[in-house]
C-alpha cells in the first residue's frame, strides 16, 4: 500500500514538474529599450474560432500604416496569403515576432506568399512600434475601428479586446488552409508556418 502511495506521489510530482518546466521566457531585443509593457502570463487562448480549414476566408478591408487600404480579395488568384494577428503593440512576445518574419522574405517569396500583419492597435501606435523593427517588407494593418472587427469575424478577438496570436494561411483561391491560434504567451515556431506554406504547393 505504501509502495503504491509512493509511486503515485512520484507520478504526481513528475507531472507537476513538467508544468514548472514549461518555458515562459522570451527574449526581448534591446531595440525596444525599456518600452515594453510586461503583461505577465495570460490565459493561453481566450476566444472561439469562427472559421475552419476549408472555409473561404472572410474578406476584409483595412488601413495599413501607410498607403492605400488593403483588402484580402486583392490577392485572390495572385498570392497565397498569411495573416499574422498579434495581440498588441509594445508587448513582449509580439515585439519579437514580426522582426523574424522580416528576414524571412525570401522564404515567403519561395512559396509565393504575401504576409499581412494585423493588430487591433491604432495607426499612430503601430507606426511608432514598427519603426523599432527596421523597415518591414510586409503591410501592417490596423484593425482598430470598428474595434477588432476582423479579429472578431475570424473568431480571434479575446474578451479584453486584443486579438489572439494567430496565423491563418489562405491559398490563391482564398480558401483557409492552415490555422494556428497559438498560446498567446509563446511565439509560433517559424518552421510550422513554413511547413504549412510548403504544403500549399503539393
Amino acid at each position, binding site marked *: 500500500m505504501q509502495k503504491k*502511495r*509512493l509511486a503515485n*506521489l*512520484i507520478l*504526481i*510530482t*513528475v507531472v*507537476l*514538474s513538467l508544468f*514548472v*518546466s*514549461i*518555458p515562459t*521566457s*522570451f*527574449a*526581448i*531585443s*534591446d*531595440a525596444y529599450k525599456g518600452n515594453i509593457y510586461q503583461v505577465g502570463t495570460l490565459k493561453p487562448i481566450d476566444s472561439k474560432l469562427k472559421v475552419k480549414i476549408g472555409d473561404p476566408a472572410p474578406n476584409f478591408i483595412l488601413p495599413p500604416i501607410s498607403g492605400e487600404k488593403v483588402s484580402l480579395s486583392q490577392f485572390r488568384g495572385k498570392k497565397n496569403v498569411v495573416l499574422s494577428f498579434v495581440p498588441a503593440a509594445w508587448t513582449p512576445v509580439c515585439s*519579437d*515576432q514580426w*522582426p*523574424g518574419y*522580416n*528576414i*524571412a522574405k*525570401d*522564404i515567403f517569396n519561395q512559396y509565393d506568399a504575401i504576409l499581412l500583419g494585423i493588430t487591433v492597435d491604432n495607426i499612430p501606435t503601430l507606426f511608432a512600434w514598427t519603426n*523599432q*523593427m*527596421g523597415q518591414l517588407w510586409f503591410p501592417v494593418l490596423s484593425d482598430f475601428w470598428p474595434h477588432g472587427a476582423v479579429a472578431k469575424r475570424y473568431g480571434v478577438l479575446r474578451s479584453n479586446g486584443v486579438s489572439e496570436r494567430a496565423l491563418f494561411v489562405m491559398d490563391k483561391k482564398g480558401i483557409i488552409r492552415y490555422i494556428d491560434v497559438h498560446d498567446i504567451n509563446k*511565439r509560433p*515556431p*517559424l*518552421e510550422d508556418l*513554413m511547413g504549412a506554406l510548403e504544403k500549399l504547393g503539393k
Partner: protein
Amino acid sequence: MKQILFYLTIMILLLSTLAFPALAANKPPQKGEALPVISLPIPKNSDERNYLGLSGSGLFKIPQVKTKVVIVEIFSMYCPYCQKDAPGVNELYRLIENNPDIKNKIKLIGIGAGNSFYEVEVYKKTYAVPFPLFPDKDFTIHKACGEVRTPYFMVIKINEDGTHQIVHNQLGNYPGAEPFLELVLKASGLK
C-alpha cells in the same frame, strides 16, 4: 505525521531536481564569475567542429573550446538590433581569423535565445554568419544567463588550468568590429 513529512520531503526533492533547469538566474553572470553550466551540441559540420577544436559527437561546455578566449553572443533571429549588428559581428570573426597572432586564441559562437534550429539556420543564411550558432529553443540557456535582452555579449577567458571566468559582458551597444576586438584583447589580457 511522520509519513506526511516523509512524502513532503520526497516531493520537494523531486520537484527541485526535475524543475531545476527551468529556474531562471535572477541576474546575468557577472565579470569575474564563471559561466553558468551551458551544454551545447558538438557541431555536425566538420568546419565548425574544427574551428572550435572539438571532435566526436554529443555535448560540450564552452570552456572545452580549444582556445584562450570565447566570445559568446546571445542573439535572436527575431531581434532587430541583432540583425543590424550581424554584419559587424561577422567582420569581427574575419578580423580574428585573418590575424595569425590571434586566430587560434579567440573563438566566436552565437546562441539563439528561444530560436529553433530552423530559425537559427534562417538567421545564419540571411547574414552569412561564418561562426557556429546554436539554438536555445526552450530558453534554457537564456534563463541560466539571467534572461538578458539581446544582443548580449560575454567574453570568457579560459585559463591554462582549465578554469575560466567572464572578463567582459555587455548588452547591445556593439561598437563595431575593431573597437570590440580591442576591448576583447584588453579585457582578456591577450594584449
